[in-house]
């Protein structure tokens, strides 16, 4: 390593990993149990079917919204740090 990892990148990387794990659980974990989830009822749908047809999709969108908001905040934070640093 030539230099210390910048704060901006460290925070980005951590956020990315957390959201990626969430995505993995949502995509592969939940659907692994689709058969079992189908026993439950949600808004008139069997839950396993609902997750595949709508639930997962809405949560994907939520992940992206959260990521974008965090990254905007991080960008602003970096701007402030640069201003203070001159």
């Amino acid at each position, binding site marked *: 390593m030539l230099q210390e990892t910048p704060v901006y990148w460290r925070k980005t990387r951590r956020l990315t990993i957390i959201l990626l794990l969430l995505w993995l659980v949502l995509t592969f974990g939940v*659907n692994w149990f689709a058969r079992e989830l189908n026993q439950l009822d949600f808004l*008139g*749908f069997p839950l*396993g079917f609902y997750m595949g047809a*709508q639930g997962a*999709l809405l949560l994907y969108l939520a992940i*992206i919204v959260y990521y974008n908001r965090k*990254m905007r905040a991080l960008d602003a934070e970096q701007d402030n740090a640069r201003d203070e640093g001159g």
Partner: protein
Amino acid sequence: MLPSLSRLQRYYLVYTGVFLLFIAGLAALEQNGMPPRWVGYAFLVFTITMYATIGVLSRTSDVSEYYVAGRRVPAFFNGMATGADWMSAASFMGLAGTLYLSGFQGLAYVIGWTGGFVLVALLLAPYLRRFGQFTIPDFLSARYGGNFIRLVAVGAAILASFVYVVAQIYGVGVITSRFVSLQFEIGVFVGLAGILVCSFLGGMRAVTWTQVAQYLILIVAYITPVAILSYNVTGVAIPQVVYGQVLAQVSQLEETLFDSPVEAEVRQLYRERADRYAEKIMQLPVSLTHEREQLANQINELKASDAQMREIVALERQRRELPHDPEQARVRWENAMYSAVDRSKPPVHHAEAFPGETPEAQQAQRLNFLALIFCLTVGTAALPHVLMRYYTTPSVAQARESVFWSLLFIMVLYITAPAYAVFAKHEVFTNLIGIPITKLPGWVAAWSKIGLVGIEDINGDGLLQLAELSLNPDVIVLATPEIAGMPYVVSGLVAAGALAAALSTADGLLLTITSALSHDVYYRIFRPDASTQFRLVISKSLLLVVAIMAATVAAQKPGTILSMVAWAFSIAGSAFFPALVLGIFWMRATKVGAIAGMLVGLSITLYYILRLEFSNLSWLGLQGQAMEPWFHLQSTSAGVFGVLAGFVTHIVVSLLTPPSPEAASFLARIRRGHDREVS
């Protein structure tokens, strides 16, 4: 008037208004006796004129405008354009049909094709935009250095995109030939003209703005029929919200229908037919000679007894159509046997996850389901024509926003597709099954003429049973307006939407192929000193050549085109995904590692597809090379092995080779935060 809207938003609002007025006008004209065929023509001419106008208005001879639309596309519109780029003829026509036929198992496509955008958002889009060049091979070459990796990337991009573009042009041919009754081959070339007016003059800039227009048309066209259907069945016109209760009704109907004695009888008849074919195949070549002799005897007997000429002619035709040799007989009878076996199986309950008779079969279904999701998500995050779109936004932040808009606009269709399938199934169960075959509605006959609907009264009771009806997946969306008895203008609208889906994807893909050839191969490798003028001339000529090649292949009606599209995802995923992601997130990734990973990943994917799908290419002398699928996975999921092998190879080889010195500065550049204009 609406000051909060930008100029562009106002333009497209007016455009949408004009389009809706156009539909209303046509509906009124149809009421007053305008023939359906003219409605079809009106839609075709109107929409293609719109696209052409936008294409001509955004013509350009600037390199940055041509390849990346001048990087001035706002996030909102880039999202819409990506939506149209992404949703192909397969999504528009095929997805609802697949969900109709396979129920829950079809949801793998819905999950995979949307989940992939999370990977795009988190792992790729911001970094590609910060890098800010023109193509995906550009990125790999800058990260790893050297032109060899550029060539490997160009090869993979062209392989994946060309297969995909042929499928789109094929789709255009199907739509034009069906709705405006052009001959298929002519339809293909009319579609080609529609594609070229957008991309030829204005490159990415024209394609982007036409794609926005095409998105609006395709989404209106997709939702209208199912909203009407939903209103008719439930009284609420928002199908996505209310189809839960319809699904419950369908499940109830399934309970009574699937176990009824007459359905069981029909399935038994199909099973017997399958057994007969199996027996005939076992006894080849004797059974073929035997059959030929039998027919000859029958003909001779008829001739001797001076029967009706017509009967003799019919039998003689039957004899002519017999397979010429045992090999052909085997292929033909095997197909007949498999189709009979399919129909003899008890149908699957729509909402049931991982259906199977034994726990092992269920486990195999589960693995296939998850593996397909994996391939589709990774493929989504690796198809160059989609990734290229994130070069066109003004900033990194806008690139991130634009993934959000992309997913939102795409989701509108993917959330509707399962509802489409359920409503269509409800219609079929309640209004079609158990009806006398002579009294079936007109659309059944119309669509069976072109072979997309098949009806066979195998038990001879004169009524239609579920197992006696076979539907091609493409027919569900295209025929829903007719199934629900809507006016022809809705059918025309659906056709226009399908056309928009096919044209927009074809545009994006053609642009990817030509920029790979003209920018990456010609400019970067052969003639770095070429003038910008000349580069665009090369690019435009290549566009023409590739488009005509694709149309020529499509005009041959290659049969396996739809499964080839699924393979394109595995190919793109195993070639690009590990190299891109490790290139961005792992400083230690080296050039040799990337090249090895790409080649190994691609080879494994191609090997798996070839060994599973082309085991019986006996005419190539490749007999007996069929293999047992690994972990019961179908060839559409070949990417699982390719991507994993690609990752492992990339990592191992990178660790064995010395780190590349340029990686640190390149990564520092793409990983830093945003730049402000004033700092």
